[in-house]
Each structure stands twice: as C-alpha cells, then as structure tokens.
C-alpha cells in the first residue's frame, strides 16, 4: 500500500514501466510491420529512459547516446529493414504459428519479468537508484528477447528478439556504467546496424529460396485449427 504522502512522481520506476509496456507491445505482435512499429515505440521509450539517466547523472555524453538511439534505432534500422524486406511476400513476414502460442508467451514473458526482478533482488548495489530501477528491466528485456527468438518460426521475426536483447544490453550498460565512452557506443550502434542489414539480407535470400509454399502445409500450420 502506497502511503498517501508519497514523494514526487517516481520517474524512474514509471519510465521503466513504460519501457516494459512497450516491450510487451513488441512481443505480442505477429506481423513484421506491427512489431517494427512497436519496436519503434520501444526504442523511443528506451531513448527517453536514457535521457532520464543522463539527467539524473548529469553526464552529457549520455544525452548523445539517447539521441543516437533515437536516430539509429527508431529511424534508421526500421527503414533499412523495411527497404530490405519490401519484396518479401506476406507469408514470410507473418508469424502464423509460433512454437508457443501468443497467449502463453505473453504470460511466460510476464513470468520472465518476475524472474528478472527476483534475480536482481539479490544484487548488492541496490542503493544506486538508477541501477535499482533499470537493472531488472534490462534483464527482463534480455530474457524476453531470448525467449522471443526461440519462439519464432519465421526467420525474419527472429530479428525482433535480437533487437530486444540489444536494447536490453544497451540499457544494462548505460545503467551500470552511467555511460560508456561515446566512441564505444557509436561503434556498438554501427555494429548493430550492420548486423541487422546482413541478417535482413540473409533472410530475404532464404525466403526467396523457400518461397514455394505448400498449401497443405499451411493448412496444418494454422494454430487455431483442431487436430
């Protein structure tokens, strides 16, 4: 129960909650376009969180990191992915039948969040306000991202897991070190960018090769069919 005379709005926790919500937005999407849009929102939330860290710590470099996050991950990467995959047929972009149904994976993700909080409870430096708020979130992001990658069949949609993991790592690093050196960060960003492009291009190839879809297979795939 919250005492009615609580202090000012707990910006840290709320921002971490918003980030969490945005992450769930990505997890529960089936379509490539949908999760890309949701990923954009998640990244915006992430860059907001980064800006908050910058404000709290007063390190100006983190502002740059926040801006970079916004530009590269919310603008460039989605554009690149869109362009690279624009010729792909709908079939290759839509998660018809993940290994675990969306309803169950939503609940599993929630359990992973609980697990992340449970694990980080034991971490000794809970006195650090920023770390206390964001460490569990970043861990959740890692878990959820991995789970998403494991769970998806459509190759293109596995990238979503990768991107979530990456966002989790970024948050982890920023929260833990209060801003790694800017150069390294830029390097990381470019790394990711290249990774995304390569994997997307690879996906395109793959789905071109396996594009001859069998109707009977599709029938079996639909997850709301009995039998």
């Amino acid at each position, binding site marked *: *129960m919250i005492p009615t005379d609580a202090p000012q709005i707990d910006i840290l926790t709320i921002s971490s909650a918003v980030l969490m919500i945005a992450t769930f937005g990505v997890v529960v999407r089936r379509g490539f376009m949908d999760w890309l849009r949701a990923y954009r929102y998640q990244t915006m939330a992430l860059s907001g969180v980064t800006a908050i860290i910058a404000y709290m710590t007063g390190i100006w470099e983190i502002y740059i990191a926040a801006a970079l996050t916004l530009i590269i991950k919310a603008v460039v990467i989605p554009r690149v992915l869109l362009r690279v995959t624009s010729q792909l047929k709908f079939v290759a972009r839509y998660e018809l039948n993940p290994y675990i*149904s969306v309803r*169950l994976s939503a609940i599993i993700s929630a*359990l992973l969040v*609980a697990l992340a909080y*449970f694990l980080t*409870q034991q971490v000794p430096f809970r006195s650090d306000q920023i770390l206390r708020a964001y460490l569990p979130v970043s861990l959740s992001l890692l878990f959820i991202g991995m789970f998403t990658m494991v769970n998806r069949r459509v190759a293109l949609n596995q990238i979503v897991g990768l991107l979530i993991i990456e966002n989790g790592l970024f948050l982890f690093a920023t929260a833990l070190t209060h801003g790694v050196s800017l150069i390294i960060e830029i390097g990381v960003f470019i790394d990711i960018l290249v990774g995304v492009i390569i994997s997307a291009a690879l996906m395109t190839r793959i789905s071109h090769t396996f594009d001859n879809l069998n109707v009977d297979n599709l029938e079996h795939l639909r997850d*709301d069919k*009995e*039998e």
Partner: protein
Amino acid sequence: MVSSLTLFQATIILYSMGALLALLLRGRKYSNLLTYLLPAAASLFAIVLSANVIFAKDALHISITRDALAQFGFDVFIDGISAFFILLIGLVSLAVSLYSVGYTKEYEGRKDTSILGFLFNIFILSMLLVVVSNSVFAFLVFWEVMSLTSFFLVIYEHEQEANLKSGMTYIVMTHLGTTFILASFLVMYLQTGSFSFDAFRQYVPFIPLQVKDIVFILAFIGFGTKAGIVPLHIWLPQAHPSAPSNASALMSAVMIKTAIYGLIRVLFDFNSVGSPDYTWWGILLLSTGAITSVIGALYAVIEKDIKRALAFSSIENIGIILTGLGLSVIFASFNLTALAVLALVASMYHTLNHAVFKSLLFMGAGSILYATHTKNMEAMGGLVRKMPWTSLLFLVGALSISGLPPFNGFISEWLTMQSLLSTSQIPDSTLQITIAFASLAFALTAGLAAAAFVKIFGISFLSRGRSEHVLHAVEVPRSMLIGKGVTALAALALGVLPFIGINLITSAFNIQSAQPASPFDTITLQNASGSNFASLSPFTVVVLLASVAAASYGFVRVVGGPTRQVVYETWDCGFGGLDERMEYTATSFSQPIRKIFKAFFRPRNSIQREFYADSNQYKRKTIRMESTTRSLFEERLYTPVVSATIFLFDKIRRIQTGKVNSYLLYILITLVLLLVLVRLSP
C-alpha cells in the same frame, strides 16, 4: 439438555438398526421407508450432537480401551473439529436418506435393494466413526470399512463392466492411499510410542522437524488420494459416477471430506503450524490446490456424462478447499493469526458448502437418471418443463457451485479470494508474487466452473429434448424433492446469512475472529492500516436485488404499459421445422474451451467420409465425426506406471512361484524406506 453421549449412542444405534432392518425386512412392504427413515432420524441426532458439542461445548471422550490390547483401543473423541464434520455428515445424510426413499425405487425389481440399504447405512456410520476415532487402530478400521462399503456401492451395478473397472481402480487407489496414511501413523508411532491420537497431540511438539515433514508428506499423499488431488484423482471420476446416485452424493459430498478432516487433524491438531518452518507445507497445499482446482474444472467443462462432470467438479472444489487450507498454513507460519483464521474459515466454509451443493447436484443428477435412465447430457434436454421442481433445485445447486451471489458458494469463494488478496501482508515478496500468480489458477477455476455448470444445467434442462429418453420423463417422487429441498435451503441460508456458517466454524475450531455477531451483520475485513479492506453483507444484497427488481418492474410497467405476449416457434430463419438436431450439444458448448486449452486436452476430431466413387469426393454417402480428448494423466502417468508394475511383477513371478500381493509389497517397500529414513534422521 441431552448429553452428547446419549446422542452419540442414539445415532450409532439408529444407523445400525437401519442397516440391520434393511437386511431383515428384505422385500417387505415398508422396508424401503424404514431403511432410509432410520438413518434420516439418526442424521438428525448427529446434527443435534454436533450442535451440542460445538455450541454447548459438550465434548465427548469415550475410551473403550482394554489394557491387554492397549494399542488397539477404540477411543472416541468428539471435539469441535469432529463435530463440524459430524454436522456435515448429518446434514448431507439427512437429505440423502430422505431422497433415497424414492430413489431406490429405480432399482426395485431389478436389483436387491436391501443390500443397497445395508451398505448405505454402514457407509454413513463408518464415515461418522472415522471422524470420531481417536486412535490409529480405530481410525484405520473405520477408514477401511468406509472404503470397502463405498467400493461395494461403486460396483453395486456390477452387471455393467465399466462399473467393475471403476471399482477396480477405486480399490487399488484407495488402498494405496490407506497405505500412506498407515505409514504416516507408523512414523508417528515410532516417534511417540503410542497409537493414540491423544499421545500424538501430546508428543508431536517434540518430534524433530524432518520427521514431521515426512509424516506430513505421507499423510498428504494418503489423504490426498482419498480427497482426489491431482494426479491422484484418477479413481474419483470413475468411481463416483458408477455408484448409485445417493451413494455418489455421499461419496462426493462427504466421503472425500473425511480426507480433509484427516489433513486438518494432522495440520492443526497434531501439529501447531506456527513458524516459517511450516511455510512449505502451506505452499505444497496451495499449489496442489491450485493445480487440482484448475484441472478438475477443465475436465468438468468438457465432460458430457453428467455424473462424471459433477465428480470432476468435486476434484475442483477439493482444490479450492486445499487452497484455503494452504493459505491458512502459510499465514499461520508467519504468525498472521487473523489471516490464518480467515483462510481457515474460508476453507471450512467451502467444505461445508461443497457438501451441501454437491449432494444437491448429485441428487439432481440422480433424479435425471431416475426419470430418463441416462447419464449422457447429449441425450437430455427440455427437462425443465417435465421436471420443474428438480430443475429449480438443480439450478440453485448450479448457482451455488458457480460462486454466484446470493448463494453460499459466493461466500466461501469471496472469503478465499480475500485470503488470497491478504497475502500482501506476508513479509516475503517472492512468496507474495508467487501466491499472486497462483491466484490466477483460482480465478480461472471460478470462470471455468461457471462455464461447466451453465453447460450442465443448460444442456440437460433447457431447450428441446434430444432423445426419446426424455420423452416420458416425469417429475420424481416427493421424497426425492424433499431431500434436494433440504440441501437447497441450506445453500440459500448459508449464502444469505453467512453468520451461520462463520459462527459455526469459529466455534467448532475454537478460533477467535471479529466476525458477525448477529445474523444480519456484515463480514468485515480490515487492512494493515486499519481501514475497511472489504466487507460483505449478503442479506443487504438480497434486499437490494429484490427492491431493484421491484422498482424496475414498476418502471417498465409504467413506461411500457401492459405486456401482450404471443407464443410462437423459435426463429428458424424461415426454413421451417427446427428439430432436436438443431440445438447446441454439450460437446459443442465446450468445444471453444477445449480448443483454447488444446495443449492440455489434446483434442482429436476424426472425420470419416464415405464416397460413392473415389473419382468424386464431393458427394458423400456418409459422414461420421468422432471427437475425442485424451487424458494426460492416464496416458502419461498411470499407463506407464501400471505397465512398469506389471513388468516388474512378471519378473518377480518368474523368480518366485507364489503369488505376490501387490499391496503387501507397497506396504513393505514403503515401510523399509521409512525406517531407513527415520534411522538416518538426526
């Protein structure tokens, strides 16, 4: 004021007379009436007895122990806890006895009803004696009598092979359970050196914790088998439906509660769970309860045999009872006494409620069986017009068990939910979160139970008759209605005036709680900071409901004027001629839920289409649809275990020539293992 002893003696004598007369008066004119009116009278005595013990605090302690056989004494001790369960037995058997007067006519001319009467009386008597026994020997003897009589009741209609199979499963499982109970008691004996429950109470505080844990686990498995916890529930949905409906009612409503009784003795009487060492007992109970309730409810939803559906619902309700019990233990282990009381009250209230509405529902199902000679819901329908009273009473049962206000199920589910919500006061955040997540199972159970009972009532009683079974159905004899009426009234009373139940439980268990002092008071719970956490006054709700209904009737009447009704056919899209095939079936009703939980049910729809010619697959001669679900527990757990056992016995038989009694082997292995464990324990 009559003393408890007299009442107790009278009760026993009346039940015994009922049993004897059933045999002696075989085939006489009034044999039926006497066979069941005697236990009804006995039940009244039992109810008075329990009231006497609970409210007049006239506990009864009889020792019939002879020195020579000190270990094998028949001690009787009726304290509040026993009295509470005696009340349960009394109440249900009163209703069921009255009901049986009419119901056994079903078997007249077909079967020997005197045997049924005999078993019926002995069965109730044995349950009564189980809950008053105060020594291991007595307890086990009566437990065994209870199991055997119920076994014979299960195979009463042994002409049907399915019943024999059910009986077989039942007897094996129940003995497995008994073995564990025996083992639990033996460990206690090894520690206390006595077979008397009094000694247990006295010495248990001095038993090492690890041993206590073992005792608890053994007792939990043993009693859990009887209660039907998952995955030991396998016998329950087979055995309960096989027995005659009056016996099913007793088995589901009361017999499985004797297991709860046993657990309570172990938890709160022999032990006093008051330190965090016991938290995991609570967690075990709670998680088993959660799993049991969800799985029971899931099966209840898809079942189309009405009595099997009710049996699965019993499993579900045992789960809810265990949830409350588990919470109580957890609270107690953190010394949150008020909350422990709340959870215990919730659990016991549900025990009482379940006894009331489950017997009502089984009697209702029996009435349907009596009138239509089928248990298959797919063959029913339209009974509401043929059996108006039965349907009304069954509806009361369905509303109660679905936990809807203002019936009794709502009160106990409300109390359980409040107990769950109060877990925020536990000083352990991991546990808090775990329990919060576990409450998901509880809520899912509530939702599924409502779905199950909408289906059971809706498909069986409403719309059009689905087969010729229902064509000649007529309302059942009055005695059967009275039996159901008694429990329906109890359900309503316990729902509108929870004061009755709560006071009963608090007095019986001798616990303090700030609960309603007068019948119309509200139940009030406070939160940690002392403001109103929740309160409930069902009586006010009923008054409000009634006045809102009256007001709205008035309003509609004023605005809308008088109503003219035209009776016409159901809308058939102008095609003309709806028939019984064009209404929803039980299988169809539950199909969406089956599909959502398909990972659990593993449904299979196989469609066979026969064509006139292979070159044209568009014109079908016949289409046949078979829809099945698989029982995970039978397939994954029992079948492998059974085949492994058979394999093992085969091996043993090859080595040894003599016959091996499987139960002896169980006991032997268990005992050896236990002794080793006890030896090893510090």
